C-alpha cells in the first residue's frame, strides 16, 4: 500500500507534501515531490486528491494482493473521478458525485 510520484509530471506545488497525515512526502533539490517513507503510507489517498498535475498514483503492495494497477483521481466540479489503470493499459473510470450520499 503506497504511492508513486511521477517526477516528470510534478509541478512542485507542494500540496501533497502539505496534506500527508504522516508527513511522508518531501521535496528534492529541484522542488519535486517524492515519498521518503513508502512503507509508512496509510493509503488514505489525500495526496492523490490534492495533486493538480495528476502526478501521484496509488497502488496495492504485492504483500496484500496488489496486481500492478495504478490509481489517480480527477475532479470536475462535484464529480470526483477515480481512474484505475491496469498493467496492460486498460483504464476503468468510476465517477462519484460528491453531492450524493453513499447508498450503504
Amino acid at each position: 500500500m503506497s504511492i508513486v510520484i511521477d517526477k516528470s509530471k510534478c509541478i512542485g506545488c507542494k500540496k501533497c507534501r502539505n496534506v500527508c497525515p504522516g508527513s511522508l512526502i518531501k521535496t528534492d533539490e529541484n522542488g519535486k515531490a517524492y515519498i521518503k517513507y513508502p512503507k509508512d503510507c496509510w493509503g488514505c489517498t489525500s495526496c492523490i486528491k490534492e495533486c493538480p498535475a495528476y502526478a501521484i498514483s496509488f497502488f496495492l503492495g504485492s504483500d496484500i494482493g496488489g496486481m500492478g494497477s495504478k490509481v489517480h483521481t480527477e475532479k470536475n466540479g462535484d464529480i470526483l473521478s477515480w481512474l484505475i489503470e491496469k498493467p496492460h493499459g486498460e483504464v476503468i473510470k468510476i465517477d462519484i458525485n460528491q453531492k450524493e450520499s453513499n447508498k450503504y
Partner: protein
Amino acid sequence: MKTEKISTDVLIIGGGTAGCYAALTISENSDKKVLICEKAHIKRSGCLAAGVNALNAYIVEGRKPQDYVDYAKKDADGIVREDLLLTMSEKLNEVTDRLEKLGLVILKDKNGKYVTRGNRNLKINGENIKPILADAVEKAKNVTVLNRVNIFDYSVKDNKINGAFGFGIESGIFYTIEAKAVIIATGGAAGLYKPNNPGFSRHKMWYPPFNTGAGYAMGIRAGAEMTTFEMRFIALRCKDTIAPTGTLAQGVGAKQINSLGEVYETKYGLTTSERVYGTVNENQEGRGPCYLRTEGITAEQDESLLKAYLNMAPSQTIKWIESGRNPSRQNVEIEGTEPYIVGGHTASGYWVDTDRATTIEGLFAGGDVAGGCPQKYVTGALAEGEIAGLSAVKYIDSKESFEKISDEDTNYHLRETEKYLTDRHSLYTTEQLEEAMQTVMDSYAGGIKTNYRFNEKQLDIADCKIRQLETLTDDLYAEDFQELMYICELKERLTVCKSVIAHLRARKETRWHSFAENLDYPEKDDRNFNKYVNSRLENGEIKIIIRDLVTGGEKYEHSN
C-alpha cells in the same frame, strides 16, 4: 535547537475530529485564544483522512439517548461509564446538524428527513468530512493552528497543567507553550502490536498508524488516572485491505460464513468482540477462511459498493477491480486486525468526569483519548470535543491566576530532546526497536500470533522485555526532526504497552473474548470484576485502582 515561547488561553493538542470541534466550540462561545498543535496538517489528519462511509452514532426518530447508552453498555458487557455515554448521546444529533450546515452531505428523504441505516446510523458522503471541518477551523476567530508541531510532554506542577512542550518536525523549533487550560485530543494508539501485514504494507491498518498514543503516554507519565486499557479493540475487516465490513454487513445484509458456507455469527453472539472471536475460532477449528457472503447481490448493489468504498477505503474497490470479480461474484474474506487501544470504540483512556476533566487540573480530554465512553464514532468525538471545549472555558473563567512554565522545566525538556540529536553510535535504529516491541506484544501480550490469547506468565515476559527495550531508547539517534518525532512516538508506545500489560494482568477474568482473553481466567467473574480497572503511575510504578461501576443515573465526580 531554536526555541520559542507561546502563550495562549486554550491549547488543543491534536487537530483531528475532537480537537477541531473543540476549537470551533470555544471560538463560538467565548473570546478565548485557542492554539491547535497538530503533528501533520489538520486538513487530512487523524482518523478521517480517507473519509468515512456513515455516521454511526445518531439518535433516530423514536429512540432516546438512553437507548444508545444501553446499546454501548451491552456491547462492552457492562464496563462503561453511563454518565459519560449519556452526556455524549444527548449531543449526537446537534453535532450532526452542525456537520450538515458545514457542508457534509447527508442522505435525506423527499420530506427532508435523514434516511437512517438501522437504529443509529445515517448515510452520508463522507469523503471530504475532514477538509470540511478543517476549513471551518481555519475560518474561526481567535483560533491559530500550528501544523507539523509534535507535542511530546505536558508541563505539570502540583498536579496542575501549565502547558506543554513540542517541536516543529520541519522547522526544528523547540516550543514552550503556556496555556491556561489544555485539551488533549490526540486519538488512540496503533502500532503497539505486530500488524496483519508487517512487510511493505505494514501501515495498511485499520486505525491511523500515525496515532501513536501520545496523549495516553503524556497522561500516564504525568500521573493522570487512566481506565480500561485492557479492553483492547480488534476490528473485523476485509482481508488484506483492512477495509470496513459494516458496509457489507449492514448495507447489503452480508452474513459471516465459514469455508463450508455455514453462517457462524449466531453461534458466538453478535457483540463486536464476539464477531471477532467467532472468526478466530472457526479458523482454529479448521473451518476457515471466513467470509462475508456477498455472492448473489445485484449489479446495482455491486456498483454502489464500489463507490461507497472509494469514499472511505479505496483499496477495497481496487482489489475488486484488479481481481476482475465484483462482490456479487466472490465472497469477501475477513480477518481480525492486530489489537489497538482506542477510546472511541472501546473504553480505554483518561478517567474523566462528565465535563471531560481529567484528574490533572486544567487538562480536559475528548475523542479516542478519553475513556469510559465507547462507540463514539465520529459524532461522539465531536460531542466530546464540544463538552471539553466548553469545560475548558468555564475552568478558565473560574480561576483568578495561572502559573507560568518555569525555565527549569523548559531547559530540562530541551535537554532531553536535544540529546537524541547527538550520535552516540547506537547499535539499533528506532525502526528496529519498534519492530521488536511489536514482536513482544504479538507473542506475549495477546497478539494475532496467539489468536489474541495470553496468560499471566506470558504477560510477565512481555513486561520484562518491554522494559528492556525502553532502556535501549536512550541511545537512539535522530538525523532530523522527523526522526526525532519517531523516537518520541516509540517511547509513547512503550509507555502505553506497559500500561496495557498491567491492565490485562489486573482483570483476572475473561469478560470479552479476543479483546482481553486471559487463559488463566477463562470465565467471566462478575463478583470481582464487574468493575473498572484503572491505574495511575506512582513513584515510577503502575498502581492499579479497582473502582465500582457508575451506573443508573449516577454521575461521577473527581473527589481527590
